[in-house]
């Protein structure tokens, strides 16, 4: 009987079975940032522990960093205190830090892949739920809490229970204007925001196999929004081509040997899955969320649910969402007026995301009432985009072009919604209050859809822009 990638990686990293029945799993790569690590360092210091594997630990700053004025000390004194705390901790324990001003600073889930730190067959942990992103390389990557950050710092291990595996095949081909973001929003809508509890999601099928690494990262990133703590794609030639030549990837002859090893980790053809789901990629259209969790979405040509049509158990949730959003059940999502357009976040802030958005805004200007913000995922992405002139396209269209960070995805820095503003956002969460205003409203969509909404001033079908581009 064949094995899944998850089983192979799990077995290769199992230290022992703990008296609690859990597995002690070795963590090959620990990524840390300024928000969830300070308390963990205090805990190990209080107990006199050391950092077990400082050379398997890497730090950056992303959550709280300003994206406009990045001069130190930060104007926000608490943000500055968090920066100093991280700087002290990494200095004390000998951990590399990609700090503000470093050419590699950026969102932790963007720089890991970019630097070649993220590799197939690794176990990866980070105090951030979107660590599932790294699974795009065929790694098994967990988001963890601060006490677990302490565990990994002290022991390079986690105590975990095994996961089941659900194979999700996305078949067919995506139509132009339909992106990885639409695929994952559809998966979450179909399987539910709690459907993945207890599972790792293995993404496969012709659509996923044909995707670039950037696109696979988008899909794996939002696994956790469907309650799957881990999501992954089996490594293949696309993975290897991406990794070749990156700073931390094996070099020269080692790279060829590594490829052999990585290939052997992919799920076997006769692997047994705990569940299988097929999604018809041909049928997907650009998707937009209308509610207060990422499962509440609809195709751009579709209509919002009418609570009166729903079974009693589902009605309350939909009514609560419609009330918060001040949307009419049964109405269309297209035509919803927006106030802010945000292109960024660990979901959709990579070079190919910015290219697609720039394609849509080129030669246009965003609507007069819209504030537009483009926040590259890393300083590396920012430089690459600037080499192609994307920053000029965005600026000419009326967008602000910023430095790298998490920014308005969770509004821990100065970028946030105000009052009841509606934001077309390429990020991952539309929870109440997520973008910094307790009453602010978020519509999740692909970066190209955000760009189209910014130009129109309302939610529109990006395929309209793209078809004009062909005829122009």
């Amino acid at each position, binding site marked *: 009987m064949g094995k899944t990638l998850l089983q192979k990686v799990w077995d*290769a990293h*199992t*230290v*022992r079975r*703990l*008296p*609690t029945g*859990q597995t*002690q799993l*070795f963590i090959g790569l620990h990524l840390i940032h300024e*928000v*969830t690590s*300070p*308390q963990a360092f*205090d805990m190990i210091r209080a107990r006199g522990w050391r950092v*077990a*594997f400082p050379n*398997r630990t890497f730090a950056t700053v992303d*959550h709280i960093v300003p994206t406009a004025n990045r001069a130190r000390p930060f104007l926000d004194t*608490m943000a500055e205190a*968090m920066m100093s*705390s991280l700087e002290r901790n990494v200095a004390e324990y000998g951990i590399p830090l990609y700090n503000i001003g470093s050419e590699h600073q950026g969102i932790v889930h963007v720089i890991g892949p970019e630097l070649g730190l993220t*590799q197939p067959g690794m176990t990866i942990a980070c*105090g*951030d*739920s979107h660590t599932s992103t790294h699974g795009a390389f065929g790694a098994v990557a967990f*988001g*963890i*809490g*601060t*006490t*677990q950050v*302490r*565990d990994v710092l*002290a*022991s*390079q291990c986690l*105590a975990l229970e095994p996961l089941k595996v659900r194979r999700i095949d996305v078949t067919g081909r995506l139509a132009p204007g339909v992106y990885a973001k639409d695929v994952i929003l559809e998966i979450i809508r179909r399987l539910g*925001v*709690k459907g993945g*509890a207890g599972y790792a999601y293995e993404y496969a099928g012709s659509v996923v196999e044909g995707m670039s690494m950037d696109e696979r990262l988008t899909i794996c990133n939002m696994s*956790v*929004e469907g*309650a799957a*703590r881990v999501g992954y794609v089996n490594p293949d030639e696309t993975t290897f081509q991406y990794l070749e030549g990156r700073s931390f990837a*094996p070099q020269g002859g*080692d790279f060829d040997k590594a490829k052999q*090893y990585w290939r052997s980790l992919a799920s076997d053809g006769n692997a047994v899955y705990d569940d299988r789901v097929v999604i018809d990629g041909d049928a997907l259209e650009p998707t937009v969320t209308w509610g207060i969790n990422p499962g509440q979405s609809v195709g751009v040509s579709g209509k919002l649910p009418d609570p009166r049509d729903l079974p009693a158990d589902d009605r*309350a*949730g939909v009514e*609560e969402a419609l009330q918060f959003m001040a949307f009419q059940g049964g109405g269309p999502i297209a035509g919803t007026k927006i106030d802010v357009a945000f292109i960024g976040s660990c979901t959709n802030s990579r070079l190919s995301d910015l290219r697609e958005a720039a394609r849509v805004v080129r030669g246009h200007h965003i609507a007069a009432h819209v504030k537009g913000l483009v926040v590259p995922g890393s300083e590396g992405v920012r430089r690459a985009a600037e080499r192609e002139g994307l920053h000029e396209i965005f600026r000419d269209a009326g967008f602000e072009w910023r430095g790298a960070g998490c920014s308005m995805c969770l*509004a*821990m820095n100065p970028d946030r919604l105000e009052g009841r503003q509606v934001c077309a956002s390429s990020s991952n*969460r539309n*929870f*109440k*209050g*997520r973008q*910094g205003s*307790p009453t602010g409203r978020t519509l999740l969509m692909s970066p190209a859809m955000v760009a189209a909404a910014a130009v129109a001033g309302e939610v529109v079908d990006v395929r309209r822009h793209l078809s004009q581009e062909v005829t122009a």
Partner: protein
Amino acid sequence: MSASRIDHVSGRGIPLRGHDIDTDRIIPARYLKAISFEGLENHVFADDRSDPAHPFNQPQFQGASVLLVNRNFGCGSSREHAPQALQRWGINAVVGEVFSEIFFGNSVQLGLPCLTVSHDDVERLMAAVEADPATVIDVDVVGLRVRSGGMTAAATMPPAAHEALTTGLWDGTGLLLADFDQVRALAESLPYVTGRW
């Protein structure tokens, strides 16, 4: 290293109705801007509590220690600040229909048991507490039962978490460090650690 055993929690209940209550709602991100967990209890459900009717605002539920919730409680961000804030507010056990995995795991590591009971039993417990906020809820972590008044609800919890809480192994770094030679040996077996491909 040893932590105390969590065998049993008893106290008044606080009902928090609704599915998919995420960690951004339990503790909004702006309160994560700190280098310690101290004082988080002051901001638990900060935005939701702009509604005066929110249970955490109600005088009759102050001092309650058993939180009653519905499905997918604690979904979203992995921030441990969420269970930290609840625990510091005074919650010593959570009883609900379904818990998000990361929230559940974070809670176990803080010695905060989360017990799963049926939809109907949550409903009964919530109704009992709403009718009489003085109602005591007795959470038997060892026996996996939740009792209140005349009712007894059967509860479940993944075996490892149950074992960890009831044997006092929930604060588990000591376990992970107990045989560090084995950890080193495992690291030496991984090509990406050794560089020997």
